[in-house]
């Protein structure tokens, strides 16, 4: 059981307020992902939930109990840090056993849980090594192992995979998703990575300067961004935002069209421009189009390969039902 509620929580460091009053509910068993630009307060929010930072005002509730004044060690949450934060002087076995030993669990029970965790995380062969003798991926698995053995009310992850290489990241992403499906424990996950956010989350929380811009399922955010910020932030490559007369034609201050919702032609189309850089990924091609008179640059994503090169004349047509409209305040119409 782990329902987490933030009620009018604020946080200031000295005179600077990094989190203005904020309300958020994370349901029991949910996988919530915090995303936002660097410095927007994702880690701070996570640390407020963990109790590693004190709220300047407002309350944190876990399963309906106010825990604002409760120390982190008594909140029953587990955290996985970006830097792994393993105890370097203890073996993997001792690292994993540590929270259980602190809670006074019997040796036999500890050993059973260590074996189970080691098995599910592929750590069985490494139990007697020190963290210094492990690779980054193995270290992060130990950190996860240390978190799962204590059956926390919720897991908190602060960019756990960002120190790993791309291939390992994909593997660990799946492992964490599977872990969530299997255990059904609430998880809060901070990331910079679009793909992690979109694939893992039940619910994405988009933050900017400590303010929640939108909360919703990944596809909600993708299809119905509530404002220009979310529209530009979710999706990769970024949505094209157009503010010229073209927007006025749609009775909006700004219109947005995702790169994958533009069709390309060399003969005719709604908008025309010249090809700048074309990035060929094999499965997809990203074309940066200039001189459209709509924006500095329009990005197009087409699947498969297309023979265009720098300086080619090109025509673009947006899919009519995929145009997002925003008013002068940047809010969705």
């Amino acid at each position, binding site marked *: 059981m782990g329902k987490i509620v933030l009620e009018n929580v604020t946080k200031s460091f000295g005179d600077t307020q990094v989190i203005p009053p904020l309300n958020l509910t994370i349901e029991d068993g949910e996988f919530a992902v915090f995303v936002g630009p660097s410095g927007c307060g994702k880690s701070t929010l996570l640390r407020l939930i963990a*109790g590693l930072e004190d709220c300047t005002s407002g309350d944190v509730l876990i399963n309906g109990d106010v825990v604002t004044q409760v120390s982190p060690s008594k909140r029953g949450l587990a955290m996985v840090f970006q830097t792994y*934060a393993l105890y370097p002087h203890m073996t993997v076995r001792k690292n994993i056993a540590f929270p259980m030993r602190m809670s006074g669990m019997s040796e036999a029970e500890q050993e059973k849980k260590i074996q189970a965790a080691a098995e599910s995380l592929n750590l069985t062969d490494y139990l007697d090594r020190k963290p210094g003798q492990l690779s980054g991926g193995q270290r992060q698995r130990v950190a996860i192992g240390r978190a799962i053995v204590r059956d926390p009310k919720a897991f908190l992850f602060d960019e756990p995979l960002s120190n790993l290489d791309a291939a390992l990241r994909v593997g660990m992403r799946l492992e964490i998703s599977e872990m969530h499906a299997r255990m059904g424990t609430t998880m809060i996950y901070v990331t910079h990575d679009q793909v992690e956010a979109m694939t893992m989350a039940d619910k994405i929380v988009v933050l900017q300067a400590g303010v929640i811009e939108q909360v919703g399922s990944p596809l909600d955010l993708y299809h119905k961004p509530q404002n220009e910020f979310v529209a530009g932030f979710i999706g990769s490559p970024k949505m094209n935002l157009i503010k010229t007369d073209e927007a006025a034609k749609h009775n909006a201050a700004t219109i947005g069209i995702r790169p994958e919702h533009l069709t390309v032609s060399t003969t005719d189309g709604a908008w025309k421009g010249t090809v700048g850089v074309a990035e060929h990924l094999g499965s997809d091609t990203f074309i940066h189009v200039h001189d459209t008179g709509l924006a500095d640059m329009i990005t197009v994503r087409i699947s498969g390969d297309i023979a265009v090169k720098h300086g080619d004349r090109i025509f673009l047509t947006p899919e009519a039902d995929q145009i997002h409209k925003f008013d002068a305040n940047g809010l969705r119409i």
Partner: protein
Amino acid sequence: MAIVAQSSKYGQIGRTTLAWIVGLLFFFPIFWLVLTSFKTDADAVKPEFLLFFTPTLENYVNMTENYDYWRFARNSVITSVFATVFTLAVGIPCAYAMAFNPARRTKDVLMWMLSTKMLPAAGVLYPMTFLTKNILGIFDTHFLVIIVLSLINMPIVIWMLFTYFKEIPREIIEAGKMDGVNTWGEIREILIPLAWGGIASTALLCFIFCWNEAYWTVRLTTTDAATLSKLIEGNRAPEGLFFGRLSAVSAAAVGPIVVLGWFCQKQLVQGLTFGAVK
């Protein structure tokens, strides 16, 4: 190539020679002290017996039989050990709090602690003597010496520990909190094992400072709690200096600490350079 190799070889020889000269220069007083301690008081001042003389153990025998060396030595051990333990017992939690839960004024507190070292000790000699002798009645007790030694060394010990603790990643301590340990658990299970090297060299240095302290130990004791510093001081007889005798006492006083320092060289270097040399 050959020239470079040769000049660097000469440089090497030069540096080695220089290091030996400096080393011997620092070692010379100790050597001289030990040498003199084996001369009779009469021989000690005669230039013709500078290096060649008939060695005698008379001074050492005299010292242990007539001056009660072992009582002074025991007092030195008791006061230094307990003062070091007490200083660390207070210093570790203190440095821990400042390193991992700094408040707005933590830096100022650290500076203030250091500033207490700048107070001239002589300035408080009278109040200290009066207070301990006439009001508290703890003059010439182990308790007083331990407290005074602890307080003298507390600032430097806290500074050193603070510097070591700062090197421990904050997340590791935070991971401990998340894993359900309370503050004492963090200190016992995580902080002390991780900073063990730093704590050991701090303790060693603190012990040496306590052992060598002379200003207060000489002035706040007479017999019961008198340390080896007091024994040396006491052998400055009014009828003139008995160099042989004084040297033997001094050698026996610094001997244990020199031996200790010799065995713990590595920790000491690490301690004095705040871990800059790995």
